[in-house]
């Protein structure tokens, strides 16, 4: 399903705001810096379009607004007063601690199950197939978690929900950017 036009409009609005602020701050930027700025503003605009309803948007904004990063200033400019509210929603430190514990316990569990599996002699074919399938699925879930911002904190169900929303937002972002690019090219060409 194509992203709804309301989402696109909101994204466009916020992005243009962000772009204006970016360009006003620095005049001489290298191509990379500019790319970064543009991408950043686009991402932040995308995330803020969700107004903190989804986990990935909050995680994205939180990642950008990490203390000690350059972009924080930019983000605060773009988002304005909302940024504090949105980042407060996600308890980053608490979540990260919990996440670390969870990761550690999962590793321990995995090691123990691996040992148990090794001691088991020859599993029947069906069980072997399912175990392989499960391993596959688990690996891919890990990859997906690394892709989605803030994915490592989610359980499987919410991960898939967030992926859904993230894909919609990304496709909206791409559409808007592409159309803007084509428009600007047309304008500049003439």
């Amino acid at each position, binding site marked *: 399903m194509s992203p709804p036009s309301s989402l696109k409009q909101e994204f466009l609005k916020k992005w243009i705001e962000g772009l204006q602020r970016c360009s006003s701050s620095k005049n001489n930027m290298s*191509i990379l810096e500019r*790319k970064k700025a543009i991408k950043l503003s686009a991402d932040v605009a995308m995330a803020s379009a969700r107004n903190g309803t989804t986990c990935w948007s909050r995680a994205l904004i939180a990642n950008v607004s990490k203390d000690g990063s350059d972009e924080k200033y930019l983000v605060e400019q773009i988002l304005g007063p909302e940024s504090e509210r949105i980042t407060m929603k996600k308890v980053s430190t608490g979540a990260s601690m919990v996440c670390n514990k969870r990761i550690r316990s999962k590793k321990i569990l995995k090691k123990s199950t691996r040992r148990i599996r090794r001691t088991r002699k020859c599993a029947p074919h069906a069980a072997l197939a399912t175990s392989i*399938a499960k391993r596959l699925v688990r*690996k891919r879930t890990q990859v*997906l978690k690394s892709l989605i911002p803030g994915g490592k904190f989610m359980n499987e169900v919410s991960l*898939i929900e967030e992926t859904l929303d993230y894909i919609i937002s*990304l496709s909206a972002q791409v559409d808007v*950017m592409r159309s803007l690019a084509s428009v600007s090219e047309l304008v500049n*060409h003439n």
Partner: protein
Amino acid sequence: MQPCSREMQAMNSFLCQTQQIPLENLESNGHQQIQNPKFEPTSSTTSYDDDFLEQMLSSTSTLPSGSWSDLKSPWDLPKPDDQTGGGSNPDHNNVGFNYDEVLASKLRQHQINGGGGPTSPPTTAMKMMMQQQMMLTGRAAAASAAAAGGGGGGGGGWLSIPLSLSSGNDIVDGSLFKSPNHQGGDGAVQALYNGFGGGSLHGTNQPQHFHHSQASGFGANARTAMNQTQAGGSNTGGTPAQPKQRVRARRGQATDPHSIAERLRRERIAERMKALQELVPNGNKTDKASMLDEIIDYVKFLQLQVKVLSMSRLGGAAAAVAPLVADAPSEGGRGDCIQTSGNGGPHGRNSNGNDSLTVTEDQVAKLMEEDMGSAMQYLQGKGLCLMPISLATAISTVTCQSKNNPMINNVNPNNNRPLRQASGGEGPSSPSMSVLTVQSAAAMGNGGVDGSIKDAASVSKP
């Protein structure tokens, strides 16, 4: 819950010999020859007529509902006249009292009604029935009196046992005995009786269950029988008298909360995967693992597109090229997915992952600022090529269908650069042409693609 109280054990030993008898009695409508149950009647029962017992026996075995309603009045009016040695045990004083009240009232009723006089064999059966009824009342009374002590002879012994039994009989008896357990004293009997009436109202099979469970419960297999009836009831879905809220399980599925939660979770995941299937192109995979694979590829693709588009917006030189993440660089194809999918692949390129990507990307961007040609050469050295973006969707669909599915990268060269002079080395002639780079030479291997690359004056794969 196991019947582990000593009263229960005592009861078991006491009734083991007799457990079959009441069951048979219940199931059959006719009179049966019943063995001597070694029944130890309390002093109060010895005074009963055989006639009375026989009548009780026949009435209970044939029409439980009818008989219970007949008996209602005597149970409401317990009379203490015939109280004798039943209350010998101080602990069970009120219990014995209730016993005797009940039995005495029954006797009175019988005497009032007058009755025929059958022969003695049914008497023992009747005595068993009485015993059961007494146990039932005893349960209610004992519950109300909270006297679970084991003393005072056989009568005292089997008072407390039904109490322990009742704690385990959630499904079948809970609805019936809930009220008696909460009331005290005389009211217990009446409430018990109401429970009986209610049981009969619920359905014809309910009293049967009740009797079955009561009878079989006194045996050694009490617990398993209860569990079976419980399981049977819940599994076949027809349990109107269940006090707990339970998710009705389908046939052959477990009903414990863990598996239910697990099943709910799996259903939710399946729902969302279906929604994702519509979103992701080529998401017609049935397998969860391959569906996840498609999702991962698509998300990477979109992220890369955003990156490239953001570069193009710069109005910078020509295309800024970002190298690809090749998911399946091997010739083999999907069969190797176990090893090659994801960032954890065994290939060195993949293992370096995003670091090398961004480095290459930055390099190419820098080169492109100066000279398109040098950028092209750099790419060539890396094994990359440029491609028109108009092929982007086409390629993605083609590669989705094919075995290997390399990620494709969208790059937007923006030929209109207000800030920089357009260099003459621009390959693509059309203004809004974007460029794709595709890694994994072996994967593509399409001559046609190379041809179109050449059209765009791009570099072909080495």
